[in-house]
């Protein structure tokens, strides 16, 4: 229940639902809690609901911070 996983939105369907692809598994979820989703977007899926649209820039920013943490004290 507690897992929230990123999934790619493949198709928008009736009643504000969508088909998402979770590593090859296709599943119907609700988009009631998010706005402006188009096919190709990544969303965080939790108990059958998209909780948040993932922001590519934000993810790149986080990865850049990981790289920065990894590069500190590289001479040690």
């Amino acid at each position, binding site marked *: *229940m*507690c*897992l*929230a996983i*990123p999934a*790619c939105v493949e198709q928008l369907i009736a009643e504000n639902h969508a088909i998402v692809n979770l*590593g090859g598994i296709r599943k119907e979820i*609700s988009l*009631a*809690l998010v706005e402006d989703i188009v096919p190709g977007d*990544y969303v*965080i899926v*939790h*108990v*059958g*609901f998209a*909780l*948040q649209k*993932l922001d*590519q820039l934000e*993810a*790149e920013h*986080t*990865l850049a911070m*990981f*790289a920065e*943490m*990894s*590069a*500190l*004290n*590289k001479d*040690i």
Partner: protein
Amino acid sequence: MKYIDEFRDSTMAQQIAANIAFETNPQRNYHLMEFCGGHTHAISRYGIVDLLPGNVHMIHGPGCPVCVLPIGRVENAIQLAQTPGLILCSYGDMLRIPTANGMSLLKTKAQGADVRMVYSSADAVKIAQKNPQHQVVFFAIGFETTTPPTAVAIKQAQALGLSNFTVFCNHVLTPSAISHILQSPEVRQFGLVPLDGFIGPAHVSTLIGSRPY
């Protein structure tokens, strides 16, 4: 960007682990509480404890709604499930939780009660739609992430005019759990649980942000 593989770079992780070891002071101990059961799982699964220096200790936190639910609530759910004609819908996590007398929702189901495992609160609404002659109760548990889906289910049931759908609400809050720990005598008075920091639940912050902390 697929948001999974990019975050699983073992070379980078080992370099970060080496940097943590370099930055820590060998003269002291560090106690960090990971909030979520999901964190605890990931820490064990990926061997994070072995990557950390010996003086950095991970302490398991309260962030599993199944574990922190008072057992009386499971007993209440079992009583509901035993009501003739009632369908009790629950996330799978709750089904095996034993009560003091060794009962569980799974055993209650085996004895003939109509207990249905659902993946989503929306599935419970569908069950109510298909069974207008039965009262359908959704056993709602979880932190901030599971609460909005319960709210959507209630709105959906109202929009559909369902009079046979109710929610047994047991939702809980993350910041309250953290402050409860920090206020406890074990931490404040007796110093039994030294804490230097928390690892917070990121998916909770997708909903509440960081200000409540």
